[in-house]
C-alpha cells in the first residue's frame, strides 16, 4: 500500500492581501476634498464674491465666464433670479456640512446609547428598542423622512432632527450586536465580580469598545445623509428657499435645464457627488483600518 497521494497545489484564487493593502492606503484626495469643503463652509462669508440670497433680475441666467455672454463678475454664472452660482455653492457647502455632521452625530448618539442599553440590559428594553428598529428599518429612509418633513415643516434644523430620527436605527442594530458579544467577554465578567454597577460597566467598559464601530458607521452614513438632505431639498421639503442648499439649487436648475442652462445643474451636482464620494472613500478606509471585524457592515 504505497500509493502516494499526489499533492496538487491550486493556484490561489483569492489574493486578499493585495486588495487590502491597497485599500488601507490613506485616502489623501478624499480627505483633501472634504477639507476644502469644510474650509469653504467655515469661511463662506469671506470667500463668496456675492450675496448668495440676493440677485439682480437684470443679470439672470448668465453663463460661466468661458462661455459667450459670461463674465468674470459671475465666474460660474447666475441663476433664474440673477444670483451668483459660485456664492450659492460656497454657502451651500455650509448647509451640507452642518446638516451632514450634526445629523450623523445626532443619529449616532441616540443609536449608540439605545443599542448599548438594548444589548446590555436585554429583556423588555431590548425587545422594545429592537421592535422599533425593525419596524422603522422597514420604511424606506427617504419616504420616512418625507413623511416626517411633511408633518413638522421644512427648516434646516428640522431636517437635522428628521434625519437623526430616521437613521439612528442603523447604529442601534450594529451596536447592539457588538454589545451582545462584548458582554460575554472576560473583562465584563470581571467588572461584574468587582462590583461595578450596570451603568458603570456600560459607560466605562462597553462604550469605549463600540465607539470605533460607531465612528466607522458615522463616516459611511455621512454620504447617505448628505444625499438624503439634497433629495429632501430637491423635493421641496428640505432646506427652505432662499437659503442656498445644493439640492435646492438642483431643483431650481430644472427650470433652465430644457433650454440648456447646464451650469445650474452640473455645478451643484458635482459638489454633492464629490462630497459623497469622498465621505464614502474615507469611510471605506476607516472601516478596514479601525474595525477589521466589521468589513461586512
Amino acid at each position, binding site marked *: 500500500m504505497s500509493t502516494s497521494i499526489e499533492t496538487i497545489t*491550486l493556484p490561489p484564487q483569492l*489574493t486578499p492581501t493585495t486588495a487590502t493593502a491597497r485599500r488601507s492606503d490613506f485616502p489623501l484626495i478624499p480627505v483633501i476634498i472634504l477639507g476644502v469643503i469644510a474650509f469653504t463652509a467655515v469661511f463662506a462669508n469671506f470667500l463668496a464674491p456675492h450675496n448668495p440670497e440676493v440677485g439682480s433680475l437684470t443679470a439672470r441666467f448668465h453663463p460661466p465666464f468661458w462661455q459667450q455672454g459670461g463674465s468674470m463678475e459671475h465666474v460660474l454664472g447666475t441663476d433664474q433670479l440673477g444670483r451668483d452660482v459660485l456664492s450659492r455653492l460656497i454657502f451651500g457647502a455650509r448647509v451640507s456640512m452642518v446638516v451632514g455632521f450634526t445629523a450623523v452625530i445626532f443619529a449616532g448618539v441616540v443609536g449608540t446609547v439605545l443599542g448599548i442599553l438594548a444589548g446590555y440590559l436585554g429583556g423588555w428594553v431590548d425587545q422594545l428598542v429592537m421592535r422599533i428598529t425593525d419596524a422603522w428599518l422597514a420604511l424606506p429612509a427617504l419616504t420616512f423622512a418625507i413623511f416626517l418633513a411633511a408633518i413638522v415643516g421644512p427648516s434646516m434644523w428640522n431636517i437635522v432632527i428628521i434625519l437623526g430620527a430616521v437613521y439612528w436605527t442603523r447604529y442601534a442594530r450594529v451596536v447592539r450586536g457588538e454589545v451582545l458579544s462584548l458582554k460575554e467577554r472576560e473583562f465584563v465578567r470581571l467588572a461584574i465580580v468587582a462590583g461595578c454597577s450596570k451603568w458603570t460597566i456600560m459607560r466605562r467598559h462597553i462604550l469605549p469598545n463600540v465607539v470605533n464601530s460607531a465612528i466607522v458607521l458615522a463616516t459611511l452614513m455621512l454620504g447617505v445623509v448628505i444625499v438624503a438632505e*439634497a433629495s429632501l431639498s430637491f423635493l421641496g421639503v428640505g432646506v427652505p428657499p432662499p437659503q442656498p442648499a445644493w439640492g435646492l439649487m438642483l431643483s431650481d436648475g430644472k427650470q433652465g435645464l430644457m433650454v440648456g442652462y447646464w451650469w445650474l445643474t452640473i455645478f451643484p451636482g458635482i459638489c454633492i457627488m464629490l462630497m*459623497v464620494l469622498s465621505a464614502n472613500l474615507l469611510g471605506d478606509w476607516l472601516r478596514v483600518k479601525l474595525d477589521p471585524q466589521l468589513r461586512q457592515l
Partner: protein
Amino acid sequence: MKQFITRRLGYSLLSLLVLSLTIFFFVRVTGDPASLLVEPGASEADIAAIHQKFGLDKPLWIQYALFMWSLFHGDLGQSFYYQTPVFELYLDRLPQSLLLALVAMGFSLIVGIPSGILAAVNVGRFWDSFGKMFTLLGLSLPSFFVGLVLILLFTVYLGWLPSSGAGGPLHLIMPAFALGWYFAAAHMRMTRSSMLEVLGSEYVKLARLKGLPQVLVIGKHAFKNALIPVLTLAGINLVLMINVAVVVETVFAWPGIGRLLYEGISFRDFPVVQGVVIMGGTMIIAVNLLVDVVYAVIDPRIRLEK
C-alpha cells in the same frame, strides 16, 4: 416549520403594529392633527368636522382604534387635491410604478450580474478594481443628478429621448437607467461576494480538480448557486424600487407612486403622504416575510435556527 412561520408572522404583525403606532404618534405629537388633515385655509367648522370624524376629542387609545379600524377597511382617507380616496389613487398609480421598477430591475441585473462575476473571477485585478469604482460611483451619485444629466445629454443636446411623462418605450429608458443605476451597483456587489463564497467551496474545488475548464466551473457549477442570494436581493429590491422612486419619478414626471408622494407634498395633501408611507411599509414588511418563509421552505437549516 409551522412554528417558524407562526413566529415569523408574529414578528411581521408586531412590526406593522409598531409602524402604525409610529405614524399615529408622530402625526399627533407635533400639534393638532386636524391642521394636517384639513385643506389649507379651511374654516373653523371644517376643523370641527374633522375633529368629529376622526374622534380627535376622544382619548388617544380610542383614536388609535378608529385609525386602525379604517386602515383594516382599506380606508386611507380622502385626497384633498383629487377628491378621491387615497387607496384608489394608489392603485391607479401602482401599474406605472411596477412597470418602471421592472425595467429598472432588468437593467440593473443585466449590468450587475455579469460585472459581479467578472470581478469575482478576477479578484484584485483590473476588472475587480473597475467594478469597485463602478459600485462606488453607483452608490455615491444621487439618482436625481444622474437623471438631470441624462435629460441634459439625451433630450436637450441630442434630442433623442423624451424628458418627461409616460408613453412609449422611449419614455422608459432614462428613468429606468437613473433608478436602476444604484441597484446595479448593489447587485454587482452582491454577485461578487456570493460568487467568491461559492468559488471557495469544496465542490468547486472538486470541479477544478477534475480538470474542468474555467468556463464550465464558473458557468455550470458556481454561477447557479451564486445566483440564489442575488435573486433574493433582487426580489426585495423590486419592492423597494417601487417605494423609493420618488426622486426619479419627480425628475422625469413619471406618473407612479413616487410622483403621487411628490404631489402629496407639493399640494400639502397630507392624507396622500400618509397613505403612501403606510402602503410602502406594509409592502416591505410583507416581502421580507415572504422571503423568510420561502427560504425556510427551501433550506431546513434556517427553520431550526433560533
